């Protein structure tokens, strides 16, 4: 990879300051960024590690909300987010154990890989993305593949998840990368059901409005039966066509609802 200057601030304020430099980029767990840099596909002049910022690490559950620091590893979420079991389970299924020990929720959500797991949880939960500068509603945050509402140099310091009455995440893995070929997060709240789909959509994570409406009226797998998604809006690649992914989304949605019990 190209060389860069490495800095490791210990507060959000220091990190924000460091990121003001031309060519500076934030480094979460590095599980996506470092492989990208190894391929010389990214060339930051400065990497600002967020791993030493204590205020950005940890899981807090209070008043029906689970708040996760942006630099919290997937492994920590899996172990500590018991107040939101579906979220903890999702975190415990990302990548592999070594990746989960390094990868962070902030890094994943900032990157917004179309096949990443976390964006579906954030969107289905109607979570709030908290940055050093502001709070962003999930519905405003995701703006297409690898695109988000984050400004240059803005850091995700935490994500706040309202805990649903019931929720479940179902992932069908791409056989090589083990990222989601399709992943569906269903979350049932008092005011309705939210369904977010990752891995499948051409524009990245999205809410499946028809399923949400049907499930809000009748929270059972049968409610999905008559629905369908168009394969044209889905990713088609060597692992499966758009039509196959559209089919998977429906299957996984039913399974997620069934698993909610």
């Amino acid at each position, binding site marked *: *990879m*190209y*060389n860069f200057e490495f800095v490791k601030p210990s507060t959000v304020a220091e990190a924000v300051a460091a990121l003001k430099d031309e060519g500076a980029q934030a480094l979460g767990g590095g599980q996506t960024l470092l492989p990208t840099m190894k*391929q*010389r596909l990214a060339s930051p002049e400065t990497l600002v590690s967020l791993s030493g910022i204590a205020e950005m690490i940890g899981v807090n559950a209070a008043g029906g909300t689970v708040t996760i620091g942006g630099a919290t590893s997937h492994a920590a979420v899996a172990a500590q987010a018991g107040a939101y079991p579906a979220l903890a389970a999702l975190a415990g299924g990302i990548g592999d154990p070594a990746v989960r020990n390094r990868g962070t929720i902030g890094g994943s959500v900032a990157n917004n890989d179309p096949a990443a797991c976390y964006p579906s949880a954030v969107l289905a939960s109607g979570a709030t993305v908290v940055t050093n500068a502001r709070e962003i509603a999930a519905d405003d945050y995701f703006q297409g593949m690898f695109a988000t509402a984050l400004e240059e140099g803005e850091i995700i310091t935490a994500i706040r998840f309202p805990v649903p009455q019931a929720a479940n995440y179902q992932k*069908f893995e791409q*056989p*090589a*990368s*083990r990222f989601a070929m399709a992943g569906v997060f269903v979350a049932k709240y008092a005011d309705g059901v939210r369904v977010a789909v990752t891995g499948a959509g051409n524009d990245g994570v999205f809410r499946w409005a028809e399923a949400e409406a049907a499930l809000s009226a009748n929270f059972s797998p049968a409610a999905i039966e008559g629905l369908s998604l168009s394969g044209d809006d889905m990713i088609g*690649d*060597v*692992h*499966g*066509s758009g039509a*196959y992914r559209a*089919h*998977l989304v429906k*299957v996984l949605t039913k399974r997620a609802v069934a698993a909610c019990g």
Partner: protein
Amino acid sequence: MPKDGIGASTKRREDIRFLTGAGNYTDDINIHGQTYAHFVRSDVAHGKINNIDTSAAEAMDGVIKIFTAADFASAGGIPCGWQVTDRFGQPMQEPKHPILAEGKVRHVGDPICVVIAETLEQARDAGEAIEIDIEELEPVLNMKDALKDGATKVHDDLTSNLCYDWGFVEENRDAVDAAIKSAHHVTTLELVNNRLVPNPMEPRVAVGHYARANDEYTLYTTSQNPHVIRLLMGAFVLGIPEHKLRVVAPDVGGGFGSKIYHYAEEAFVTYASKVINRPVKWTSTRSEAFISDAHGRDHVTKIELAMDENYMFTAVRTDTYANMGAYLSTFAPSIPTWLHGTLMAGNYTTPLVYVNVKAVFTNTVPVDAYRGAGRPEATFQLERVIDKAAREIGMDPAELRRRNFIKPEQFPYQTPVAVMYDTGNYHATLDKALEMTDYANFDKRAAESKARGKLRGYGLAHFIEACGIAPSNLVGQLGARAGLYESATVRVNATGSISVFTGSHSHGQGHETTFAQVVAEMIGIDVSQIDIVHGDTSKTPMGMGTYGSRSIAVGGSAMVRATEKIINKAKKIAAHLLEASEADIELKDGKFSVAGTDKSVEWAGVTLAAYVPHNYPLENLEPGLEETAFYDPANFTYPSGAYVCEVEVDPDTGKVDILGFTAADDFGNVINPMIVAGQVHGGVAQGIGQALLENTVFDENGQLLTGSFMDYAMPRASDMPSFDVDHSCQTPCTHNPLGVKGCGEAGAIGSPPAVVNAVIDALQRGGYNVDHIDMPVSPSRVWAAMQQG
């Protein structure tokens, strides 16, 4: 009888270093003053090189020298080790394979120039600064299109993209056609044998070290056969005489065929080291491996199986297109021909076989042997078409196989495709596998799966392979440009310990343990007294290396012959010491004794006498105890076996879960059952990988879409079941001293059809009219087939 002799599951001695981080792999070798090579490779599949401007790159920090094809004007091309003659008696078309691209690039990954710098990152930086002007040409990708009149040519100096059009047995062509025409029933299947990337976990590495002081070259390389590399590179590419060229293949992290071949990078670092007078190291990244290691398989085939009214096979006819890629890798031409066509009789008495193979050049990475090499392709066609035939005629697939099997009393059996099987008992392995898998109660299990909403299937395949390659005179007639003997030197030390120098190479097979077990058994001393040395041309006699399940069958035989010579000489010494007739000397449990007396001398007493020959028959016996043998096999060996796969298909997603995999193999005699089982496990996993997961896909521009582990699906632990393997059915090989057949490739040969047959069975039982799905049988392909069926 030593406790760690033949038949013992002796623990592997090599494990100690691998388990403690003390292995010595090529990338662990760093030589003082070492420089780093970075290959700048083509990013287009086919193009004309108009200009290469290295001036800016040469001025960059740390750059020592940049090489292009012009630097290799005096070197030869990378040679091909096998010349196939086509069905009209003409030699194959054989294009030059330059070390660095000359004028044209022919696949993504084709090396164009190389930067040598003080550090790897400097070399990469400079590589990016080289300006290469390439005019893109239409890529040749589809094999059938490549053979059409007027098709763009991969090699302008060849008459077409056809390497050869091979027919076997050509004299049977008309008879086979007639038999198929007059058959009671003909089953036809068209299929693809998917291209695979071998992906041993250790990427290739080469370190070249030229010592000007004595004009000697050393190449450290990740090779399965260092002497083959020395011969090919020394004699044909660089013109370095053998005594000045040492090739060392230290610990090698898996090969599976992909480390047999002589690669451009090896010749490059060796040559460049002399030019810059410093050591040169090249370490492949995994991404680079995907576009520079030889790939495997990639056949498109139509097979027809003819049967009479008793459902006896009367003829097999196949029509195969075999992808060679852009250049001929070392053994590429032999794979779809002699390692494939000669196996098309399978385990059956089919009297007439005709195999046609058209080998085609395309703008893709070269294709060569990968675990099994030709034999998996043959087995897959045959075992799939038999399964389809059984379904068509409504017969149990096991029964259809059984009635067509060569019977135990028919061995040795001359097939219609040149090879003669020495031994086998296919009924025994089939019965064993059916018993191990409780075939009789499968329906109950299928019903239980159905109750859970899953489709259960049972897939059977039987296989034969020809390995222990190979009789040199035979392969010479077939076009091999090398002998395929093996060698061993057994050096007995004065105090009785032994160093065996073998031409076989161990890169996971455990030779250091199993070879020692054989010698321990023969002499009757403890296995710890024996060391196995391999992988260094300066130490071992000229040997041909490890591939084709040949190590114990050919290399082991050479070692046995050398050890026999040792024992014969030691008996003479013992006879002298014991003042007895040599004919009366017996060797048992490490002790020489005179038959019928209590006179004896220990092994170490004899070996000491050989090196301290005070009381020694010097007048008619040389001192010392060291013997070399070269062993050239009289025939191939023919392992066989029955493989059963049981699967569950999720009808909602098309995902296939393997519930069980059973292998009942006949490997002849077995030296170390633990290691043999491990070889089967690994082979089966690679076969399951081919069947369900692995695929190599180029897009319409010739770009490799599956160029990393992100898209090329390597089998993981969670994809695999526990395996149930058995090798109790043993019909020992009749023509080698150990009666062994070889076990390295079997798993990869027998498993793909078993898996696919199981999936088809599951779908058929579930009411889906699906009779074939091409590999990999991925969830999306299963789902798509279910939509049609």
